[in-house]
Every structure is written in structure tokens, then in C-alpha cells.
């Protein structure tokens, strides 16, 4: 398939930049669209920028195979456009935030949008990758097929590693048909009731692909064939939401008014049926937004990290200080010492000199 989009391979240039960095023992700050610059710890000082945005273009896409392979610097917009033209989509709905997001950044940060509990996460959909490790070697793992158990699953390990294990060069992903119809219903309820309702949906075979609770309203998206959506709508209470509201896209990209705040934004990952988490000084409804049917919760407010982290941890969840980090708190949930040691060993196995994005995830990685 011939594509009109920007298409350029600079993997050899990137490789020589990494080799030079090895020679000079100079750390590298890997960037592409820079749409997630706010996220994570700031990379330790004295780093050279390794810009991969010029390494872009879709390499292979055959809709019947449900697989797309593209260079890491390819803008998500371009990937989504060509998929849409063929009636397909990236099932994990990666956030674009303010725009300019690339495929490599989406995979390196491993973030997924509202459809995640129902269609899988970024890591679930990765099939293979080509990467540059900290020895300056170009390696390929996984492939362009759905099933592949030859060797350790290094491709999925790259997802959410924030570039600290290697420079992603190419990524192959599983893609899926875009549902023919999608409708959202919205009803008013208390948070407890919303959590119960959204979790009941998990036990019923309904074509739900989004469930969120925001400002006292529970939003449920159902998608599929016309028949399926019409029938399922009998089971979902509330009013149909206008298509023009772009609710899910605004949720995905943090454009809803909830996110427009100068205070810290916390991301809480918990078991979906976890009862509303009570934190002193935080309003039970307005300071929370529940996505992923209750499994991903957002919290706004300037509160001390321990007061968010402790109650979440005690319920088996974990937290990220997503935006507006104050007082040098750990961005990601601190790891236990044995776990950190194992992760450091793993980091060393890919990047023995610690060149890639040092400190972006944890000070010790």
C-alpha cells in the first residue's frame, strides 16, 4: 500500500547517535512529539536530546491481517487516519493530550484511553518492536503475527518503560474493526451506585466499551452492530448523549473541565469494585472522576502524597502523581526494595551504562 504521508527511516542516524553517547558516556533524553513532557520525573540534568520525530511513516498495513507496523515517530493522528479510512482503529484509544502525540510515545508511556478495560491496553495490543538498546544494537522482538512465543516478550516489556530500556524504532500493533455504531447513555446517580452499576456491566455480556462517572453522572458507551446497540440500549438507563459532545475524546485527552486545574492531578489504579475512597479534604463527588468502569480514578487537589497513597495501597491499588507535582513527591508509586533491585538489574541488561532517560520513571532506573 502506498502512502502519501511523511515517510523516513533514520534508524542508522539514531544508532550512530547512541554509539556516540556510549563513547562519551552522555545520557540521552528521548523525545518525539513531546506531548507527554509533563508526565514522569524530569530526566536528570546533563542529557543530550535524542529526537526521533523524524523517524516516521507507516511501514506495513494490511487491514485483513489486523496488523499495522509503523516507525516510532509517526504521529498518532496519521496512524488513526489510515485506520479510519479502512474502518479500523487502535482499540486502546491512546491519549493525544494537547496534540502531536506519536506512536512511540504512546507505547513508551503505555497509557490507554476509556476503551481499555473492554478492548485491552497498549501493552495488550503490541505484537512486536524494533529497538536500539544501550549497547547501540538494533534488535527485533515479537513480530507481525498475533501469536508468537519465541523468546521472552521484550516488546511488551517496552510498554510503559518510558524509554528507559531502549529507543523504540518500529512498533507492530494489533488493530480492530471500528464499531459501526456507538451510543452513550448518561444517568444521574451517587458514586456508590455508579460503581455498582459499572461493575455489574462486567458480569453481563453487553457490548459496553466505555464507563465513566463524572460530576454526578454515569456515562456508559455501547458499541457494535446496529442491532446489538439497539438491543443493549434497553439495559442501559438514561438519556442518549449527543454525538457532538466528543465526551470520550475529551475524557481521553484530559480536555474535560475537571482536568483544567492548577492543583495536582492524581491517577489511581484500583480494583474496579473498590468503594469510593475517602480522603479528608477531598469532595466525594466533584474532586473525583472515575473512568474504566471504576478501575482508573482521577483525583484533583493539593494534598500530601501519603494521604492519597496510603488508603489506595491498603486497597491493593497504586497511584501516580500525573500532573502538577508539588514538593518533589515520587511521581510513580514507590517500589519495594526487592522489586526495585530486580528492575534495576533488568534496566542494566538493556542499558548497562544507564544512558536512556535516566530518572524519568524512578531515580534509580
Amino acid at each position, binding site marked *: 500500500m502506498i502512502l502519501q504521508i511523511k515517510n523516513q527511516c533514520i534508524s542508522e542516524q539514531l544508532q550512530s547517535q547512541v554509539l556516540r553517547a556510549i563513547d562519551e558516556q552522555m545520557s540521552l533524553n528521548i523525545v518525539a512529539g513531546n506531548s507527554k513532557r509533563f508526565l514522569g520525573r524530569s530526566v536528570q540534568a546533563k542529557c543530550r536530546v535524542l529526537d526521533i520525530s523524524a523517524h516516521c511513516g507507516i511501514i506495513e498495513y*494490511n*487491514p*485483513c*491481517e*489486523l496488523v499495522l507496523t509503523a516507525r516510532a515517530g509517526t504521529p498518532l493522528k496519521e496512524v488513526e487516519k489510515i485506520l479510519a479510512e479502512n*474502518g479500523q482503529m487502535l482499540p486502546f484509544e491512546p491519549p493525544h493530550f494537547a496534540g502531536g502525540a506519536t506512536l512511540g510515545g504512546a507505547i513508551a508511556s*503505555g497509557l490507554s484511553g476509556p476503551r481499555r478495560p473492554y478492548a485491552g491496553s497498549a*501493552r*495488550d495490543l503490541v505484537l512486536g518492536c524494533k529497538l536500539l538498546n544501550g549497547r547501540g*544494537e*538494533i*534488535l*527485533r*522482538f515479537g513480530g*507481525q*503475527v*498475533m*501469536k*508468537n*512465543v*519465541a*523468546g*521472552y*516478550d*521484550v516488546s*511488551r*516489556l517496552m*510498554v*510503559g*518503560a518510558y524509554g528507559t530500556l531502549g529507543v523504540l524504532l518500529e512498533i507492530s500493533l494489533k488493530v480492530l*474493526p471500528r464499531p459501526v455504531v456507538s451510543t452513550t447513555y448518561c444517568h444521574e446517580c451517587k458514586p456508590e451506585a455508579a460503581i455498582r452499576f459499572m*461493575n455489574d456491566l*462486567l*458480569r453481563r*455480556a*453487553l*457490548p459496553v466499551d466505555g464507563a465513566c462517572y463524572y460530576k454526578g453522572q454515569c456515562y456508559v458507551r455501547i458499541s457494535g*452492530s*446496529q*442491532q*446489538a446497540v*439497539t*438491543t*443493549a440500549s434497553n439495559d442501559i438507563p438514561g438519556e442518549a448523549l449527543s454525538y457532538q459532545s466528543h465526551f470520550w475524546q475529551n475524557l481521553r485527552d484530559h480536555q474535560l473541565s475537571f482536568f483544567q486545574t492548577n492543583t495536582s492531578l492524581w491517577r489511581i*489504579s*484500583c*480494583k*474496579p469494585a473498590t468503594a469510593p475512597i475517602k480522603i479528608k479534604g477531598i469532595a466525594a463527588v466533584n474532586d473525583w472522576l472515575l473512568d474504566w468502569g471504576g*478501575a482508573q480514578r482521577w483525583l484533583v487537589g493539593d494534598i500530601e502524597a501519603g494521604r492519597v497513597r496510603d488508603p489506595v495501597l491498603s486497597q491493593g*491499588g*497504586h497511584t501516580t502523581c500525573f500532573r502538577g507535582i508539588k514538593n518533589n513527591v515520587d511521581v*510513580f*508509586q514507590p*517500589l519495594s526494595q526487592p*522489586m526495585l533491585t*530486580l*528492575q534495576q538489574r*533488568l534496566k542494566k*541488561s*538493556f542499558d548497562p551504562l544507564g544512558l536512556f532517560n535516566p530518572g524519568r520513571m524512578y531515580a534509580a532506573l
Partner: protein
Amino acid sequence: MTNAEQRRQFIKELGLLLPFDALLTEVEEMRPYECDGLSVYRRLPMAVALPDQVEQVQAIMRLCHEYKVPVVARGAGTGLSGGALPLENGLLLSLAKFNRILNIDPANAQATVEPGVRNLAITEAAKPYNLYYAPDPSSQIACTIGGNVAENSGGVHCLKYGLTVHNVLQVKIITIEGELMTLGSETLDSPGYDLLALITGSEGMLGIFIEIIVKLLPIPERAQVVLAAFDDVEKAGEAVGAIIAEGIIPAGLEMMDKLAIQAAEDFVHAGYPRDAAAILLCELDGSNAEVSEQIMTVRDVLKKQGATEVRTAKDEAERQRFWKGRKSAFPAVGRLAPDYYCMDGTIPRYQLPIVLKRINDLSAEYGLPVANVFHAGDGNLHPLILYDANKPGELEKTEAFGSKILEFCVAVGGTITGEHGVGMEKIDQMCVQFQSAELSQFHAVKEAFDPERLLNPGKAVPTLQRCAEFGAMHVHHGQLKYPELERF
């Protein structure tokens, strides 16, 4: 561990950690553990341990670490790549006694189980809550969830519902140092590197799974299967792409060729058309309305693609019968010859015609018949080569034929194993699929978990030296350069 004295001492200390009947050292009692589902490789271990407490496993691992005794984990031993093949100087650690379902949490749709729980037992336990565990390897009545995680097993429903890796939330492992660690979490992600993804499919090389939390799904309101017959294998292959092009992701999409159809028909009377060159089984599930609509579409597509017959199972009993034929394809084909050898390559689906042609040509060249069973939706082929191990040289010929198939899968952009793992069996083909820098990276990953390489050593990832020798073997066209080398 080198000498007999140390060996005695090790066994003695091991005996102190386990009840009398949980440690086997006599040849006769260890026999059942000498091989897994790939029985052409057999070897007795130094001892077999059958613990049933987490602390026992921790203590065993510490002892093995201290004595530098390699450890091979074993679930049900249904693996098809020799992954659980014992090592002569090693301990075989059976997890079979860890067979308790610890918790079903319907509110969060998850189940906590021990590693020795059988795959199907999870689905049975979840049924009262209208839930089930999706990955369904054909061996599901016997294989364990621990083995499934170690192999990243698939099943006939993984096109829509994913492999093991997509359906596991958390595992607790015991490291070679005896440390208990939790990877993943009960939530949808976990902080730090995704070690859960890395350890899924790691074939017992990185840690021992001791507890697993799996995701459960609601039982679909309706499941319906359509059977289509074709007079040409290629047409059947094209029909698969055509269904997907309609925007439908079937729950299962399986293909069988003539030999497999006839074998299955003779074995379980599934109701397959015996004279077809290929059949497709296409399962659709979801809400009643959705399934009705999709059946119509799929039937139309199949007819348009030249199916000679399209049949929708008329009731649940017929649907079960259609699947029974497919799920018993291996034993059914097994009745056609004294032995069969199951391959497991995956290819991009559009390459199917040339791969099938190549398999046919090779079959003629080697004089060995092949039956093809195929997870068509996700491109995973299972050619079953029929042979007779009692005929001198026939096993070697079969293995050579099998390697050729796998190498061709790599050549067309696929892989040497879709779901059965590398184990001992495909270790040389790893040299075809990966470059030395990639293999070195795998070794480095292993060292992060197991610096002394005591967990299932010698499996899954070949040494560079082995690959160099394998390459040399290739150059010499089957005339082995190093006949004395171990060559499984």
C-alpha cells in the same frame, strides 16, 4: 554440584524439607516425570519434589541455589516442546499439588488460583457467577494454569479474547533465591516495568509461579458456530480474510484439511463433510441480536468465497459436536499412524497458500503424510506429521521435515512457535529466528532474574555457540558436522 557425596547431602537436606511421600528418588517412581507431551525426549531427573506449601517451595529453591542444582518446574506435563523435560543433575519441581482455587471475586471479575489448578477447573468454578476464563487450549481438561502462564498458551478462542498474557492480572513468583515476589497487580496495571508481560511465556526460566490471579469474562448470551466446506484449501484461506474484512472478529476461526477432517470424523463423528478439501469452523458470540446479524453476514461471505456447503449448528449439542471434532483433532490424527509430530508455526495469514504448498511439497519429498489443523484466524498452523518411530531414521527425518516447515514460517514473516513454546524442541530454530545480539539480550534478561542460570537451563534460548554449530550444520546440508553434539 559435582560429586556423589554432595548429591547425597543435597537429597538428604531436601528430605528434611518435605514429607516422606513428597520426594521421589527411585527410578521407578520418577518414570512418570521423565517426559512431557513431547515424549520423544525422555530423561530422568536426580529427584522429584512434590511440595504443597509455599514455604516448602521457598526452602527448596534456597537449597537448590545453595547447592547450584538446576530446577525444572512442571505442571501437568502436557507441554509439547519439552519444556518440562528433566535434567539429569537437576530437581524436577512438580506444582501439581497446588491445586486449590483460593478465591472467586465476582464483583471484580477475577479469580485467585494456585498454579496446579487445571485450566477448565477455573471456568467450572466461575460458572455459578455467569463468568468464565477465556483462554481454552485444547488440553484444557488436563493442563495447569501455571503451565499456561509459562507457555502463554492460546486456544481456539484467542482471536477475540486473547492469549494467556491478556487474561492474567497478577502472578506471585518464587525466585531462584527463594524470595516471594508479586508481579502485576489486582488492578489493570502496575507501577514500574511490566514484569508480568515479560514472565508470561518465560517457560520456567525466570521464576516459579506460585499464585495466579486471572481475569474472568461474562459468559456470552449466545454462541453459534458455522461450518463451511471448501473444495480447495486456498479458497478456505481466503474466506478467513474475507470474514475479517467485513469487520467481524469471530470468537473462533479454525480450519482443518482433508486428512484432519477424515481423522476427526472417524474418531468422534463430528458430522464433518468427509469429502471436503478443507473446512472452516467460525464461532460467533455475543448478544443474541448481534450473533443473529453476524451469522447472516458470515454465511453470505462464505458462500461468496465459494464454500460448497455452509451449515449453522442447529442446537447446542451440534455446536459441541462441531467443536469436539476440532478439539480432538490431535488424538484423532494420532490414530492414523504409530506416531505424529505436532508443529506450531505462525504466519501472516495471507501467506497461507504458499506455506501450505510448501508443506505439501516437503511432505512428498520426505515421504511423510501431513494433516493440517490451523488456528486460521490468528495464523497459527499445526501441521501434524505422521511417522513411525520404530522405523530406523524416521524420527530424524520427521524432525528435519519439521524444522524445514518452521524455517519457512520465519522466511515468510512468521515465527517458529505460536503457542507451544520453544522448550527443548525448537531451540535450534531460535537461531534462525533471532540474531546473536537478540539472543544475547535474552540471556541478559535471564541473568537479571537468575544470574546463575539454574532455572530450566538449556531450554528456550540457545547459546551463541550452539547457534554457531547449528549454522555450520546447515551449511553441510544435513551432513552433521558435530555428530557427538546433543541435538534434540
